[in-house]
């Protein structure tokens, strides 16, 4: 039984169709790697899926959407703003509570940036910023992850570690990425996008990097 059934997804930009119409199903436990050359419509598709799923999905957009003036802690804490009362959130802005500090610190440790907890987001490097956006998405504790190139600025071992962490924290995930080997290593299913259409949809175990290369 499919957990999510997407039918007739379309998107247009300036009157020009950039996505679809395309349909596919996502099953619980699917970790989908979304591949395809840039401009194929991966980012647009991630947005479309987020609009459909909203409450069920945590999103890591390509631009990350961090609040530069706030410290890392608050950027991560924003993932759970809906779980607390307005006054609790207001107090946290000035003086975070111990249990939240602890929870966020554990996440940052897993991402190897615990020392950055109180640094303003504006002061971080590209790779550190990506990890903060990922921490925020994990902290949100949604069942589904939607991420658009979340590890593009991370080096090899760190990228592996973060991908493993994402599959551990989310039961279902759809991640757009350009690194084919990483996609094959960490995803259970590969969807290839070409000219706004699904050109490839197969379990990761059944395809090789060469199959994906035809998309580019």
């Amino acid at each position, binding site marked *: 039984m499919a957990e999510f059934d997407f039918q007739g997804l379309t998107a247009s930009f300036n009157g020009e169709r950039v996505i679809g119409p395309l349909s596919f199903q996502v099953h619980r436990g699917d970790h989908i790697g979304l591949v395809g050359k840039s401009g194929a419509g991966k980012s647009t598709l991630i947005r479309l899926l987020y609009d459909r799923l909203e409450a069920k999905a945590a999103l890591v957009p390509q631009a990350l959407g961090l609040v530069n003036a706030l410290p890392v802690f608050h950027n991560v804490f924003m993932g759970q703003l*809906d779980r607390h009362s307005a006054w609790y*959130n207001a107090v946290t802005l000035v003086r975070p509570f111990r249990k939240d500090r602890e929870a966020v610190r554990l996440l940052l440790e897993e991402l190897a940036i615990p020392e950055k907890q109180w640094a303003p987001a504006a002061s971080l490097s590209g790779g550190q910023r990506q990890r903060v956006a990922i921490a925020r998405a994990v902290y949100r504790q949604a069942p589904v992850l939607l991420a658009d190139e979340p590890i593009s600025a991370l080096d090899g071992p760190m990228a592996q570690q973060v991908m493993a962490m994402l599959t551990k924290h989310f039961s279902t995930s759809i991640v757009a990425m350009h690194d084919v080997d990483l996609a094959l290593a960490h995803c259970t299913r590969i969807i290839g996008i070409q000219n706004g259409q699904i050109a490839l949809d197969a379990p990761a175990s059944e395809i090789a990097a060469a199959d994906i290369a035809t998309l580019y």
Partner: protein
Amino acid sequence: MLAYPTVRTSFLFLAIALAGLLVADIAITTSNPWQDLGRFFLGVATPNFFSTEGLFTALLRTVAFAFVGVTLGSICGFLLALIYRFLPVRIFCAFIRAIHELFWALIFLQFFGFHPLTGVLAIAIPYAGIFAKVYSEILEQADPEPARLLPPGTHAFAAFLYARIPDCWAQLRTYTAYRLECGLRSSAILGFVGLPTLGFYLEASFSQGQYSDAGAMLILFYVLIATIPLWVRPRLLPAYVVAAPFFLGEGLPIVWGNVKRFFTEDIIPSPIRKGEGLAELSGWMSDLMINEALPGIWNTVVLTQIALVATGILSLLAFPLISNHFGGPVRRTSGHIFLVIARSTPEYILAYILLQLWGPSMLPAVVALALHNGGIIGHLIGRQTNTLQLRPDAPTGFARYSWELVPRVYHSFLAFLFYRWEIIMRETAILGILGIYTLGFYVDSAIQNIRFDRAMVLILITALLNIGIDALGRHIRRKLALQTMPTC
């Protein structure tokens, strides 16, 4: 050259100003203007800081009124900014900021009298209108992405606190600090209508010819403004805000009967008050329009247009003074000092001084407005030229000025100038209180004659004129594709 819309617009405004000069009353009427000016500068050079103990009290009151007024204005302005998208709110804010602080003070004086509330509200009300507009513009520029990523169901207040405010915080703070400086100037000139701030003592020393006392006050005022970064610290700010209300002075108690009378009798047009019917009312209105409003509007517009072009010319002449594309550090330092003095002196004080020295005509007003506004724009443009990189073999001297720099900064120069158009008009109207025949003159005379009904109509007309010029300025800026942040 004339193919450029910016150049055509400039020449059009130049022509209007020259035509204005033909009809304007510009003359030096005092018998010995240069000798008076000399005595004044001698006074500034030999300041007497200890003539009256009132001087330091006046300084304290000036700061206190500025802090209370700006704090109140920024809180109300912030709340208004949150609902600024509603048209009635925008119209309300445009209206309250179109009326100058001194006009508000004149209105409140009639029913609150010399109570501190008069000075506080005179600053807080127009500032709330300005804060509302600028804060809402700043808040609009915040990156919308973080708010979109929040979990659905997040309380709107928490979303605002986390995803909106931090992104704008630095800008909100910079603008509020800038407004505090403006508030100090506003507070100082409130003394000219009788509140216990610097203007009051300045007027008193001038009228008695004590130029050394006046010089001491001006110097203290410059020091106060120039040292703002030293004494206005984020940590000290709460202490200032809490303490300021206690240093406003006692003033005189409010007579609530006056308040009631003002609203139920004084400001009702007299034919209605006396029950004389519509025919009388239209006679009253046309008399007011023909004898006061129209001459006032005419003089205000003529003076504004001349002052606007004079401001433009002065800014273009002044910006090389602080530009590091010319001359050495000594000249630049003196250029900085000149521009700091020009822009920190409120136009009203400049006009008052020049009027004392040269006698009543439009000339002191034009010079005062051009000096103050030209100082501000010259400073901003000069700073902008310092960010420009010229090729190593670029020409020097006048060729560098006219071929390399002016063409590069002309767009932002015009943007600042048209932004200040409405401000210049608001100031022009208010300078009438000093005896120049602009709208403020007729407002002030109506108040002197205890005809508040006429004064209110004239203030209303002034506000509408300002709103009109503001809209026209924005239209021209849009048409010429001129953009500027509202921090000048």
